[in-house]
């Protein structure tokens, strides 16, 4: 039918310009020379005015990294990365870290406004969200810092925490994700440049959502952020990160490490809306997102939940995990991963049950369209001491079109006979009947897909903080544009 053909053309036209965060900011940048060596690491450490112990820590990680090789077990394919052809440090050229927003380069502020991330506090959502903005290798602004400090909450760039809270950082950095945990975490430990640090004191329910916004701007630059969140006894914190990058033809590397520590009765809710540039329809460009995220439920009755909406990146390699150490601790993983065009995602979680009566829930929703590949890979491991451990896993895959793939690879290892592990998996397609029903009621093909997919993801979306759920819903629609026709 000609009308259908026309719709397909319109959609194709939209698809070409659908990544609205693809602009480049004209900010004068200080770059480290390309390549990776001990000298480069010293350069980074010097720029960050780090204490000696931090430099030693980095060098140790680097030396370990040199002995390792890149993992190949994930179901993703990409040309080998030349680690000597990257810049490991890029910073907007300013005199000092600004003390107030008035000192921040106006071009940077405009960048964040364009991204919909207002950094001026009065513009923020009536004090419910505090933002740390990371631009390439440095944190450019942290809002509501003073207000949070009054309550005893530390929310600052990790480079600042290394200088101002060395005891806390030394004690916890690398305690959840050791330097040599994997290839990318070792690389990150050697060269990480910035990221956020959060400490919530005993018994405090942090009244604001804490949020970090990551932006890669400079060309040929790796972004290696490091985030460390510590929730002391009986505290609660909800943290959200968002990510975007300019549209560039070459691939950019992003290898982050996130560590969470929850002590007795503490709870950490960590949400991610990841919208790195995914590359064009043919798979040119886009971010390689190789990330290690892990939380340790150290204390009794502690809770950690990971909620992620992954729509971006050319390749996603990411398994936010929980170590359930404390008795009665609870881990959760709620994930929506969308791949379209030539995107590849190999993502899932690891739930390691060590303590008694530990519980975990995994809800994974994978959506593939175009020629994309989407793999859920998850490990549930019950150690001998985890008496009465419980896990429930549900993996649903949705296919759009007939050239994409969905794969579910669950690993279940139980070493305690009292454990109870459940795994459910489904694979479905958006049916012609559903599309026709929606369109008969007046929805365009794109809106119909967006609606059906949002329905499919509902169990995960409802876990997102309210302020971001609407945004995430729209994002799902946008990332699937051009997937029907």
């Amino acid at each position, binding site marked *: *039918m000609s*009308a259908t053909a026309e719709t397909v053309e319109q959609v194709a036209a939209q698809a070409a310009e659908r990544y609205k965060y693809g602009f480049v900011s004209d900010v004068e940048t200080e770059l480290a020379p390309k390549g990776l060596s001990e000298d480069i690491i010293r350069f980074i450490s010097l720029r960050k005015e780090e204490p000696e112990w931090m430099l030693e820590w980095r060098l140790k990680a680097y030396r370990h990294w040199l002995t390792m090789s890149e993992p190949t077990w994930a179901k993703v394919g990409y040309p080998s990365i030349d680690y000597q052809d990257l810049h490991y440090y890029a910073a907007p050229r300013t005199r000092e870290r600004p003390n107030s927003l008035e000192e921040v380069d106006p071009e940077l502020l405009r960048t964040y406004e364009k991204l919909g991330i207002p950094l001026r506090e009065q513009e923020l959502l009536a004090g419910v969200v505090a933002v740390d903005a990371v631009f390439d290798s440095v944190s450019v602004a942290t809002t509501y810092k003073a207000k949070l400090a009054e309550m005893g909450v530390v929310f600052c760039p990790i480079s600042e925490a290394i200088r101002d809270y060395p005891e806390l950082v030394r004690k916890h950095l690398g305690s959840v994700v050791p330097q040599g945990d994997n290839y990318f975490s070792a690389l990150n430990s050697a060269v990480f440049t910035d990221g956020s640090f959060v400490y919530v004191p005993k018994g405090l329910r942090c009244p604001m959502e804490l949020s970090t916004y990551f932006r890669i701007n400079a060309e040929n630059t790796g972004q290696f952020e490091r985030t460390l969140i510590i929730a002391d006894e009986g505290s609660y914190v909800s943290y959200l990160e968002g990510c975007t990058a300019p549209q560039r033809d070459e691939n950019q590397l992003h290898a982050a490490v996130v560590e969470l520590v929850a002590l007795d009765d503490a709870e950490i809710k960590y949400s991610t809306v990841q919208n790195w540039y995914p590359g064009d329809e043919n798979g040119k460009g886009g971010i390689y997102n190789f990330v290690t995220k892990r939380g340790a439920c150290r204390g009794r009755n502690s809770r950690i939940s990971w909620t992620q909406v992954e729509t971006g990146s050319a390749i996603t390699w990411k398994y936010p995990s929980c170590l359930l150490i404390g008795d009665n601790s609870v881990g959760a993983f709620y994930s929506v991963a969308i791949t379209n065009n030539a995107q590849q995602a190999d993502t899932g979680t690891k739930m390691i049950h060590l303590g008694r009566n530990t519980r975990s829930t995994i809800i994974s929703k994978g959506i593939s369209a175009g020629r994309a590949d989407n793999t859920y890979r998850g490990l549930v491991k019950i150690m001998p001491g985890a008496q009465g451990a419980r896990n429930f896993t549900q993996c649903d895959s949705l296919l759009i079109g007939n050239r994409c793939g969905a794969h579910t690879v669950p690993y279940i290892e139980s070493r305690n006979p009292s454990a109870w592990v459940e795994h459910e998996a489904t694979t479905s397609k958006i049916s012609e009947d559903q599309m026709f029903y929606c369109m008969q009621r*007046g929805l365009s093909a794109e809106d119909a897909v967006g609606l059906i997919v949002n329905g499919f993801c509902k169990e995960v979306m409802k876990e997102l903080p309210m302020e971001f759920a609407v945004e995430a819903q729209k994002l799902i629609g946008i990332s699937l544009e051009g997937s029907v026709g």
Partner: protein
Amino acid sequence: MLKIDSLHAEVDGVEVLQGIDLEIDAGEVHAIMGPNGSGKSTLAHILAGREGYEVTHGSISFRGRDLLDMSPDERANNGVFLAFQYPVEIPGVTGMTFLKEAYNARRAHAGEGEVDAMQFLKLVRARARELGMNDDILKRAVNVGFSGGEKKRNEVLQMAVLEPALAVLDETDSGLDIDALKVVSDSVNRLRTPERAMLVITHYQRLLNHISPDRVHVLANGKIRRSGGRELALELEANGYAAYTERAA
């Protein structure tokens, strides 16, 4: 309002409609009756723009426009509504969200602004009240776990909210017990207006005891074999479709 002229259509190379002529004016209710496989549902689907049918000859004009040149959503936004024989499940999407999207799509098409959730809720409640229904089914995921009666009631409620110019009811009576049939057909009757045309497709006469048509057409083997007033339905009830299918064979 609707003028179908010598419509021929094929499915997988088999001619299922062999020259349909039909004209419906605003305010009229026409019934199409026919045995299984006569092409009734095909006609409904072609009117709504479902893919998989090839129109080989003929034309359909709707409010002066070429209907066949429009995509399914364009047709809907121009006032064509199909009450489905088998309403489709959309897990995780509440009826309220679904219907609000549809309603706002229509408004956007008409160059009007979107309504927000509160305004829409008020509107839906008012419409439901007029039909003597409550809006509880709209709180559940669209058609998921609905009984036959709930599915059809939901279709009629959607129709009431979207206010189409032309409503095509495809075997709305199938799968309904007597009580549900009465509720649904009472609602349809309340939606009869001088501006709205309706095409009621059914196998059985019993629906027409509740919804009284202005014209009845007998469709058999892809062609309208006879047209008449409501008495034709009663005659069919008494004698069956045999005379029409044999004639064609």
